[in-house]
């Protein structure tokens, strides 16, 4: 490509807003949108969808989002890359093709499959990557496992003139690195020199800054009073990166949008969900931020240089999910007078019932929304005389159990207390509110078998 490549951030998670994406297409001069629909937790949500209906298991908002964006994208030749396929990329591709066909729209939709490693995982039996726990403890309960794959299959899809690329689990930042590799013809698997590795790492850092949508442009920006300096969050512009062939990048956003791209908002996102900042592993390159430079140019523009790259790791990260019992939760309010004391008394009544009825459980978790649910015991409670006079107190009780019947019955412990418990209650919520819990199993596995199974299929609508 002649000149720079401009990539706009799409969604940051399943359920995120897409109006800012339309602004980036209409006013941001972008060539690509890369959209990350999968948080670590999302596959657990999609797994529950798939259990109910095997044709699901993908992030369904991709269909209405692209129905809205495609006319804009087509007019300006903007391409769209996303991991909304989740646990079922083929299903997502089919749903998109059907929706486009119904409108008579022509598009080349590429589907990337092969990240599902559940069938192989049993033979490998990888220990928990963080705490070393043995795989045997979860073997029978594992319900999904997906490898974080790199940019290559997306590059292949772009080489086949895909307008839209839908993947399953890929490393989030690979969604952004792939179009750079494609446009600039960067070396990927065989990158060896520091120049080659550094520009891949710059591209990865760009992806890292953009993959969480508004968090890269002033959303969720914190400290006391500082958040007030971020203008018009209601109309936030998602970040846009203008990347040069050498990998240096300008982070900005569409003109006329809210939010703020400056040294502070960019560096806060740069470290987000990074562990060792000198060794952030991805399937394509290891990113080293120890010499990164962020130069604030003003007017929502920050230049990023100096990200170093090291050779890609031999193994890929896998995240699995295993069935881990059930929970049920109830939230309930008590009003003045003695609201806090009455909430505490209600908790004791629940504990007594769990014991009386021999309802086996591993944990009864109690917190008080409005008092300490965000910071637990680090949140100082009001002085006793203030606590005693609070207008209202809410209590949230959550039971964790291996017995589904206990979870299903938990909410039924409460209604009688409206008439026969502490006075002046309101807002009971959670009579039928049980759900299955999924534990997360991060692990490593050799990349060869995974990468040999990757497939790219282009569908024509």
């Amino acid at each position: 490509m002649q000149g720079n490549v401009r990539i706009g951030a799409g969604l940051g998670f399943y359920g995120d807003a897409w109006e800012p994406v339309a602004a980036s297409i209409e006013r941001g001069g972008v060539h690509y949108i890369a959209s990350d629909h999968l948080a670590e937790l999302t596959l657990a949500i999609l797994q529950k969808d798939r259990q109910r209906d095997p044709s699901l298991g993908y992030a369904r908002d991709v269909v209405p989002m692209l129905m809205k964006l495609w006319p804009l994208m087509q007019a300006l030749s903007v391409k769209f890359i996303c991991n909304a396929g989740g646990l079922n990329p083929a299903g997502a591709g089919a749903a998109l093709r059907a929706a486009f066909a119904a409108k008579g729209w022509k598009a080349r939709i590429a589907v990337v499959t092969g990240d599902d490693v559940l069938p192989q995982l049993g033979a490998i039996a990888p220990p928990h990557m963080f705490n070393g726990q043995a795989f045997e403890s979860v073997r029978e309960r594992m319900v999904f496992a997906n490898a974080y794959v790199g940019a290559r299959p997306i590059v292949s899809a772009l080489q086949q003139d895909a307008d839209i690329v839908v993947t399953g689990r890929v490393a989030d930042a690979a969604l952004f690195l792939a179009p750079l590799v494609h446009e600039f013809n960067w070396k990927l698997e065989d990158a060896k020199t520091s120049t080659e590795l550094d520009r891949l790492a710059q591209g990865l850092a760009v992806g890292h800054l953009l993959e969480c949508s508004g968090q890269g442009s002033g959303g969720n920006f914190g400290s006391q009073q500082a958040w007030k300096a971020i203008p018009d969050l209601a109309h936030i512009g998602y970040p846009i990166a203008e990347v040069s062939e050498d990998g240096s990048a300008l982070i900005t956003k569409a003109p006329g949008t809210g939010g703020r791209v400056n040294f502070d908002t960019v560096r806060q996102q740069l470290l987000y969900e990074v562990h060792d900042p000198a060794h952030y592993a991805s399937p394509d390159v290891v990113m080293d931020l120890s010499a990164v430079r962020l130069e604030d140019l003003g007017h929502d523009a920050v230049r990023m240089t100096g990200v170093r790259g090291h050779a890609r790791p031999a193994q890929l990260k896998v995240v699995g999910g295993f069935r881990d019992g059930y929970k049920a939760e109830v939230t309930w309010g008590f009003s003045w007078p003695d609201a806090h004391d009455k909430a505490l008394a209600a908790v004791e009544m629940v504990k007594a019932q769990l014991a009386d009825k021999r309802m086996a459980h591993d944990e009864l978790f109690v917190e008080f929304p409005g008092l300490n649910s965000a910071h637990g015991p680090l949140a100082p409670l009001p002085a006793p005389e203030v606590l005693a006079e609070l207008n209202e107190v809410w209590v949230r009780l959550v039971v964790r159990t291996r017995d589904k019947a206990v979870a299903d019955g938990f909410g039924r412990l409460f209604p009688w207390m409206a008439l026969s418990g502490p006075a002046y209650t309101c807002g009971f919520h959670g009579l039928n509110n049980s759900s299955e819990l999924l534990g997360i199993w991060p692990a490593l596995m050799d990349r060869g078998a995974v990468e040999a199974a990757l497939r790219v299929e282009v569908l024509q609508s």
Partner: protein
Amino acid sequence: MKVPLVKLAHARSGDKADWVDFGLFAWNEAGYRLLEREVTAERVQAHFAPWLPGDVVCWRLPNILALKLVLKGALQGGGARNLRMDNLGKAMAAALLRMEIEVSPEELAEAVAAPRVGWWPD
């Protein structure tokens, strides 16, 4: 004197499985010198100990005036099984900003008065 980090820094928390990570950012170099001296892995662990005992690792990034902290085992096995309302630890960065560090009045005055490095509107 003791001063909470919220007077000197901004922060964001994120999650990977059952680890929570924090980026902690000084507004200027004077503030960064205080964070670098006072915010150690041991002290952050002690700060969270009443709630979340677990190992803490700390890295320093003077190039962007930041510290990186990882708090291991903080999410009860991960967001899909954590019973807390804040199951992903999104609010935990603010709990870090409650932590108090020991500085002299002169050091605090300098860190508060020095211009913020980032570009801010008038």
